[in-house]
């Protein structure tokens, strides 16, 4: 379920792996954006094609203005919907950070 992680304001959430799935050899990392990013920390597999799926639901705050410096990715997500971001296979140990436009919300994906 997409919103299993809970769209909530406070608290640090660490993904328990529920937000990572592999479909047809593609790794899909699901992250909710609203008042911050959840989960804040995700452990993913290195070396396989990956898609980050950003879920927005009534998201009008800064977390809609997403940047991922590693990928030179920069986009304002639609207020509601899913946005797919293609990520090429990453090396073991890569840490990828996503930030909101003003920098005060962030999430990290570690590739192992």
């Amino acid at each position, binding site marked *: 379920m997409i919103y299993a992680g809970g769209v909530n304001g406070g608290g640090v959430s660490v993904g328990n792996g529920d937000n990572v799935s592999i479909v047809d050899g593609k790794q899909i990392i699901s992250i909710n954006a609203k008042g911050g990013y959840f989960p804040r920390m995700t452990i993913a597999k290195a070396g396989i094609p990956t898609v980050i799926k950003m879920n927005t639901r009534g998201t009008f705050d800064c977390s809609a203005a997403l940047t991922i410096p590693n990928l030179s990715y*920069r986009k*304002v997500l639609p207020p509601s919907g899913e946005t797919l971001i293609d990520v090429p296979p990453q090396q073991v140990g890569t840490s990828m950070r996503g*930030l909101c436009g003003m*920098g005060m919300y962030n999430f990290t994906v570690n590739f192992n």
Partner: protein
Amino acid sequence: MTNPDQKTYTFHVNGMHCRACVILVESELGDVSEISKARASLGDLSVEVTGEFGDKSQDHVANDLSEVLKPHGYTLSLEKQRHSAKWSDFKLAIPISAGFIIFFIILQKLGIVNLINTSNVGYGTAFIIGLIASVSTCMAVVGGLVLSMSANFAKEGDKVRPQILFHVGRLIAFLVLGGAIGALGSAFQLGATGAFILSLVVAIVLLVLGVNLLDVFPWAKRLQPTIPGFIGKRVHGLKNVNHTLTPFLVGVATFFLPCGFTQSMQIYTLSTGNFWTGALIMFTFALGTLPVLSLLSFSSLGIHKSAQSGVFFKTAGLVVIFFGIFNLINALVSAGIIPPIFSF
């Protein structure tokens, strides 16, 4: 040609804060019939006047010319009024500004942004999103700019008109540009470099204006952004231009400032595909931000005694400096230059 009746006096100008003020002082004094030449200097806050003053004493001349400048908020004196930093004001200014900053951080921690639960944006929702945006981190950008600008104008004795013009500029820009986005179906968006530079500029402007409000470093006045003198010399009534056009244009510019709420409202607006829907959505959003922003811009009206004003300007200065640092850090973080420091 030398006229034996010509005399040259040097006076200190009290209240001369900016480059525009220098030109204003020179042009006002130049209009006085007895005066043939007037040269003001911001560096040592003085003015040198040459003219025929008859047998009036220097003191008398200073009083007469002060009358001419009084409507603009300046006075002349023989003795330089000593610049006093009034460090004692900080005893109150530090706790008040710290309280405000803590309140701001708690507001962010509360997760107020989650109060928005709908994905369909009507005019009512746009208004509520505006209300929430005005107490979100966007306050660090737009609110910081409003506070620093209005406090700086209030310092020059202009408490109402520039502030109203700012809000008029902001509302008109959101109406017109919102409509344009709706009609064109594409939003104005900066690239990574553009966004970084813009946040950096906002941060630096806030830091300069904030330091200026503290009034402890006289040299900081020279850094104050204003219309360059060479343009001003050609425009009659320069103070008026600086106090009308500047706030209006800053109001218009807030449409483009980095604020997640404004950006995502723009994205929503472009999906409407209609000029009037887009215009009214962005307009009601801006209307929603109006109550909190007005509170910030008219806070200086609460100052009646000059004893309070020192505390007020120093408090505003500290808050604005905090917002400046906040923006600076955020700009560096979102460019991936430093790891996140603030994390809400």
